[in-house]
């Protein structure tokens, strides 16, 4: 598996996975996944629903065992051996409805070895810090969905883990809370915590992640840095000219396409200067010219295929609709 740039990363690995395979009732849900996530990185697992993201995360966490392959967290093959250093937010959010907010956070901390009293104290501090001080004594069932999600996220972080795994963390959050979560993830990484999250929203991965694994149909066709993924596709040139016809057209690459007043074509390997000279000398009348670097979406289409990209868009549309 190609892992451009991140291969040369000298940081120790928080997560290593080689050839992970998981079958359910004869159907292969995850088929030979390799991952390498450096310590302190923000890393995304990007793919449509049903691609195998959650199953991969569950194998990494030790909730289920892989049928084949090995996974290591901080060098440990048994994730439960290092459970106190991990925080996990599952895709299906779950809290005890009758528990008070601070108790819920303390309970989640206790599961990861944090003494109950300390968990409760930290829970109260976290709730205050995230604008939920008024809800400390409230039961979970009295909270809005967004507030309950925040409480669960705080419970994931209360024991100050070194690795945070979030399964579709942005799902179900409004734009404001999504922004807050992005800030929280950045802050965690700035403090040295490794954050790995799954998403079917490319923008979140593009904005936050330094590394990404693209997953489709249970396979990972790409795992590496976001920059390297984008670099797989040549930058696109967008040219606007005053003239429509002329000798100068011959200076454009053969695979250019025309849309209205604009010409689009990949950035020539020789660079833009020789072509610019030919356009000026041919009196094309350049109105505007921009070089646009490929985005992660383009990279995703290139790597996973148009069908997977469409599935991703459908998932987004369905979530927005919901």
């Amino acid at each position, binding site marked *: 598996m190609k892992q451009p740039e991140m291969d040369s990363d000298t940081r120790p690995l928080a997560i290593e996975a080689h050839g992970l395979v998981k079958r359910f009732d004869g159907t292969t*849900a995850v088929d030979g996944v390799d991952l390498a996530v450096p310590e302190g990185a923000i890393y995304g697992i990007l793919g449509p*629903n049903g*691609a*195998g993201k959650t199953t991969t995360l569950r194998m990494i966490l030790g909730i289920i065992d892989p049928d084949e392959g090995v996974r290591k967290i901080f060098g440990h093959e048994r994730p439960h051996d290092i459970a*106190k250093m991990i925080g996990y937010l599952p895709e299906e959010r779950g*809290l005890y409805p009758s528990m008070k907010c601070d108790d819920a956070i303390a309970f989640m901390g206790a599961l990861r070895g944090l003494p109950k009293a300390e968990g409760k104290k930290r829970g109260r501090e976290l709730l205050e810090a995230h604008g939920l001080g008024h809800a400390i004594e409230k039961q979970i069932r009295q909270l809005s969905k967004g507030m309950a999600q925040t409480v669960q996220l705080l419970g994931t972080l209360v024991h100050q883990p070194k690795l945070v795994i979030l399964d579709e963390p942005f799902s179900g959050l409004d734009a404001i809370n999504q922004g807050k979560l992005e800030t929280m993830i950045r802050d965690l990484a700035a403090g040295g915590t490794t954050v790995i999250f799954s998403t079917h929203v490319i923008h979140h991965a593009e904005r936050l992640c330094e590394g990404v694994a693209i997953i489709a149909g249970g396979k990972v066709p790409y795992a590496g840095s976001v920059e390297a993924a984008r670099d797989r596709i040549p930058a696109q040139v967008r040219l606007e000219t005053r003239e429509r016809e002329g000798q100068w057209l011959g200076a454009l690459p053969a695979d250019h396409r025309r849309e209205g007043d604009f010409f689009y074509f990949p950035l020539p390997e020789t660079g833009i200067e020789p072509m610019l000279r030919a356009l000026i000398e041919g009196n094309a009348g350049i109105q505007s010219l921009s070089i646009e670097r490929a985005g992660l979406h383009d990279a995703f289409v290139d790597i996973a295929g148009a069908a997977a990209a469409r599935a991703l868009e459908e998932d987004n549309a369905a979530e927005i609709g919901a």
Partner: protein
Amino acid sequence: MSTYQNTTSRLSILQAAFVIARRDFTAILFSKAFFFFLIGPLFFMLISVGAGFIGAAAADSKSDPTLAVAMSAQDSTRFAQTHESLAEYVRLPDVTVIGEERDRSPEALLADTDSNFAAVLTGTLEAPELSGTEDRIDRWQGEVALIASTAMGEADSYPSVKLTPTDTSMADTRNVNAATATASITLMFLLTMLLAGMVLSNLVEEKGNKIIEILAAAIPMDAVFLGKLFAMLAISFVGIAVWGSIAGTILFLGAEALPEMAPPAVGWPLFVALFLIYFAMAYLLIGSIFLAVGSMAPTVRDVQTISMPATMLQLAVFFLATFAMNDLGSPIELFAVSFPLSSPYAMLGRAAQEAALWPHLVALAWQVLWVGIFVKAGATLFRKKVMKSGPRGAKTGKRRSFLSFRRKDKSQIETHY
């Protein structure tokens, strides 16, 4: 190499189980379910009391226990006449003089189902001999001495009554012990039924709350299972303590009115201790099966459906143990003792009827082993089968490919035009 390569940081299985147990215990203790659990035995008691009244009424309808007088004809007549005259002043048991034409041996008379002889008087007025159940002859020896003495005209000295406990008294003891065994097995069965139902409800709630994945990610499933089982066990002991206190108070206040009851073969203190231990084992065994079954069911409705066979199994085990305890040492009883699920019930039956203690140590070790196996198997099954993710899954992924293909066709057509 990771910075944390040599760091191990996790809770032990017991610590993790404690976290789960503490949460469950607190949550259940303050729930409505616990209230119903507490009043549950009240219904059982009401039914028992009702049945007791009916039984007592039936018993009252029978004639009072009678003393059969089988001395020589002369002595018998004098005894009967004296009895008649004394009965006006003191309360005496009814007597029946046995004629020469009948089999006058105490064994035959006591076994006679047509009569209601509780004891048989033989010998002479000077040396009367009383045969019957131990408690009965103990109770009647004074009256017999009084009547014999009066019949002989000796008001100051009483003849020494020779007491001969018969086989019937042994049989009675066995019957009492068997009754103790049946009652305790039934009580244990009802308690485990209640608890297994509660542990299942708890799991259903957990599935509904979708919290199970958080637990499974943080601690081993063995610890989750153990924690849940022991939380419910602790709850049951709270219940038993409450019921025990109430029952103890009632017994203390009404002790004198209660009939004397033969103790179980191992004695009351040990029997009570064994009841608690075997109850814990019976619950842990069936509870671990309920947990495994419940955790694997994909929906709440499925949990209820597939718990039915487990309930049937519990009933079958109860009937097996109840049947087997009537014939200690028989193949069926040995099977009931060996089969893990029926073992606690069958061994409790033994404790009521046999004094030997070593079989209990062996049986407890055997049951603990099976609790471990069931919990481990349940946790393993859970890890293998339960956490299937992805709303679409790979199978529906095929559907997606199909739809995508159709869309692709359409787009090709549009492009073409």
